[in-house]
């Protein structure tokens, strides 16, 4: 780990003032469960860490006229333990509770989960986010890509978005609240992510001078029935191989509207609109769920070693729909 300066602001204003103009200059530190590993392995070496855990307004879960506000520094365990959330958003709570290891849940934060870096092993071994060798050759297509993208993987990005919460939050129509020097902006979480085109782009729209301050769930979001299904190889301490989050509005046994978002299958949380259309107007039963699962992966183009993930994504969508339908 390179030596770094450490700032611990106590207000949003101080926090923003501590940030620099590039990710090399400064990085936001909350739980540190991802950032510190990246720094120890010299994948990231920011010159200054801005620890936002001392900023009170970045914490807490509050309900207001516009909906629900989950502060950036709320830990995953706080989220999982919140009785109100458990009742209104069982899918969100189950996604938080499923994040492996109590240690990560106790330290890791909501915004940290959304902004953690991809786990692509070429990236983590120092070959850059787009995983290219010294000559610029992309390493993923000809390498071991068992955990890489099956959708949105035309390149140059092949990694998968690692967030546990983003798919279910997107399904619930969440926004991120972002503070910057020009004030606060809100962005649909779905639009927050992007597949980078160059090594200088990040996988989200956050600028180096900005901080994610909260996640906002619109009023009425609790009327969606949500469920998350994650396929894990191991039950203990393992990241999902594929996951699906489903939010359904059900009326008289029929799905009026569906939002289906897959995780760990593409460089961004992947909205499966074809599957949503396939499910609309149907009862959420085994047949329609299987058809929606089918539709969700229709555009998949597996790489040399991850064809199995197409099946896993298909099943994850199917099972998440069935669970949401039962709820």
């Amino acid at each position, binding site marked *: 780990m390179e030596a770094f300066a450490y700032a611990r602001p106590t207000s949003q204003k101080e926090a923003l003032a501590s940030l620099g103009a590039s990710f090399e200059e400064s990085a936001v530190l909350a739980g540190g469960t991802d950032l510190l590993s990246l720094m120890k392995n010299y994948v990231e070496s920011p010159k200054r860490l801005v620890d936002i855990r001392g900023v009170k307004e970045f914490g807490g879960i509050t309900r207001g006229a516009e909906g629900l506000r989950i502060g950036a520094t709320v830990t995953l365990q706080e989220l999982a333990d919140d009785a109100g959330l458990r009742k209104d958003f069982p899918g969100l709570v189950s996604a938080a509770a499923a994040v492996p290891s109590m240690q990560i849940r106790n330290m890791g934060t909501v915004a940290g989960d959304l902004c953690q870096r991809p*786990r692509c*092993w*070429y990236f*983590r071994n120092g070959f850059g986010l787009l995983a290219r060798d010294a000559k610029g*050759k992309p390493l993923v297509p000809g390498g071991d890509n068992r955990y890489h993208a099956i959708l949105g993987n035309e390149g140059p990005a092949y990694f998968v978005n690692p967030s546990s919460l983003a798919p279910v939050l997107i399904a619930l129509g969440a926004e991120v609240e972002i503070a910057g020097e020009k004030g606060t902006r809100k962005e649909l979480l779905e639009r927050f992510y992007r597949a980078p085109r160059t090594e200088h782009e990040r996988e989200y729209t956050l600028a180096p001078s900005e901080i994610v301050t909260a996640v906002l769930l619109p009023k009425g979001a609790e009327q969606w029935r949500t469920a998350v299904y994650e396929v894990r190889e*191991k039950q*203990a301490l393992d990241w999902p191989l594929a996951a699906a989050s489903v939010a359904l509005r059900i009326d008289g046994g029929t799905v009026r509207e569906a939002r289906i978002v897959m995780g760990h299958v593409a460089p961004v949380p992947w909205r499966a609109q074809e599957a949503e259309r396939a499910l609309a107007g149907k009862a959420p039963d085994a047949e329609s769920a299987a058809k929606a699962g089918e539709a969700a992966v229709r555009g998949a183009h597996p790489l040399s070693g991850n064809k199995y993930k197409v099946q896993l994504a298909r099943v994850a969508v199917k099972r998440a729909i069935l669970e949401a339908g039962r709820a």
Partner: protein
Amino acid sequence: MADYHWPPADKRFLIGKSFTRLDGPAKSSGRAKYAYDINRPGMLYGRMVFSPHAHAKIKSIDTAAAEKMPGVRAVVVMFEPGKEVLWAGQEIVALAADTEDQARDAARAVKVDYEVLPHLVSDLTPEKAGAGRTSAGSEAKEGDPDAAMATADVKIEGTYGAGIITHCCLEAHGQVTEWEADKLTMWASSQNVTGIAGEMSKALSIPASNVRTITQYMGGGFGSKFGADPWGPACANLSKKAGRPVKMMLERDQELMEAGARPSIYAKVRLGAKKDGTLVAWDSESWGTSGPQGGGNPPIPYVMRAPNRRTKHTAVLTNTGPGRAWRAPNHPQSCVITMCALDDLAAAIPMDPLDFFLKNIEFTGERGKSYHEELLKAADMIDWKKKWRPRGTQDSGPVKRGLGLSIHTWGGGGHQSNATCTIHPDGSVEINIGSQDLGTGTRTIIALVAGETFGLPLSAITVNIGDSRYPASGASGGSTTVGGVSASTRRAATNALNELLAKVAPYLDAKPDDLEAAEGTVRVAQDPGRAMTWNQACAKLGATPIAAAGQRSLDLISSGVGGAQMAEVTVDTETGIVRIEEIVAVQDCGLVLNTKTAESQVFGALIMGVTYALYEEKLMDEQTGLCLNPDMEFYKLAGLADIGKFRVHMMTGPGYDERGVIGLGEPPVVSPGAAISNAVANAIGVRVPTIPITPAKVLAALEGASGTGRA
């Protein structure tokens, strides 16, 4: 006079009972000091520079910039320019600095100029690897395999195998070294506290008498920690140069890249049987890689050997990290290849594999009777006859249940070991042995044997091990420790006791031959009322303790064990996820000294077995020559939620006890891969040919069987 031999069943008062390990409280409370925990005054932190290339010639090494980095106190070049590194992770330079972070930063300032050479890190067949990349291994023929195969009613052909895994010791390799004038002390995480002292003296050209090595506790070795390794002498040299103690432990990435790998082994197998299940012929061509080393002689076919057979093995030479002995070297892989092929043959006949194995039990050789008993016992424990169903006769629904079995063997004869026993006049007793406790319960076993000899509880015995100043004892590998230390302890303790009895006899008005030590007393065996307490007896020694020595002797030990394991699994055929429901393990190891630590050994082996059967694999990238998962996120180990239910039964009593003590560390880790693979095949109706059995492989096997890819 007390006699060396193990007491008969009715006379044993500690042997065969269950005792919690003596060092459990120290370990669970953090008081136990592992090499990693040793901190010495003024200690520096060592760090090595590793090759980022799988194959390269080192043109030059420039440490000038690193030497000027903050906190750096010493630099040692470990690799001669002009020579070739043969795997990514090979060590080149070591340096020591005031803090760990300074050492890491300084290591990055070392400039090494490489001429990158072509590498091979993929786990390929000999044909695909090419002529320059293979080395011939063993080749053997027994009987007439071709003629026998022609008489077979049922023949099958298949490819089976196991990929490369690492040892992944939870405590990494490494040591702390400290000099006092020309005398070196090294706290190492070692399976060989006596042996590495000699190795260090040779590498450093100092008298062996000037080296003291200490391993009080260690966090796993599994066969990867026999040697001082290049980092042992390098650490001592850094220490010498800096004039300060140095701690240099490997980090997780280094640990997985180069500090131990179990070779891959694969085989194309043809085998045949008669309609009634009688095995007639085996024909296999096997291969695998152990890194840049060649050779290899896997015991194929394993345990159950068809009377007519041909085998041939070829080693593939690669630029992966070097192989090291991994708990029962070559056995788990050979077991997977053999037991899975036999299971497929049974399914082809078709026959219940339990009946098939019993039918052919004579082909296991001299231990056939034990295997027969063990298979029946395991079948009873898992309710095999009620639960087992032929492949492809599962209920509907995506989750399928299956049963599988396997048998295994190992040697486990005790190694050379010396012990001294001291009886103090105050009644306290010490045993000194230059052995080490890998976590298997060696301390507890030594106390138990001494306690049995003296009629004293375990708590009355002080066991001193883990220090090369104690009498020389062998490396803890090959399941040889328990035989070695139990025999040397028994003899040293008996020799000491006989001196005590001689001293005490006049006070009891008896001959030494008529006395015994039992129940905390020294007494006349035929007239137990004529007794004195242990402490009273020892007080007769006056001021001088008794010190007696003992050496391992073959009359107290034996070798050659067997075991049977059965696994019940469920497989989600829509996701390919395998879950362990239950594994039963039936194991013999001669005379069981401590039932609890024996069972613990088997439990631990089963956890490791589930891990290598389902999850772990060292993944190499051909493009970069690097290991892709030198971490514990993607180098996957089973956790509590993954292991299912285990039940263990130790075979004891007549037929087992009288063989004497035999090692147990290795054998129970051999069968889980095969038993689980066979259970998966039974569940889904088709073989997943290699371990680990990942969801991708399960789905591919199902797709191959159905032709649709949909479950």
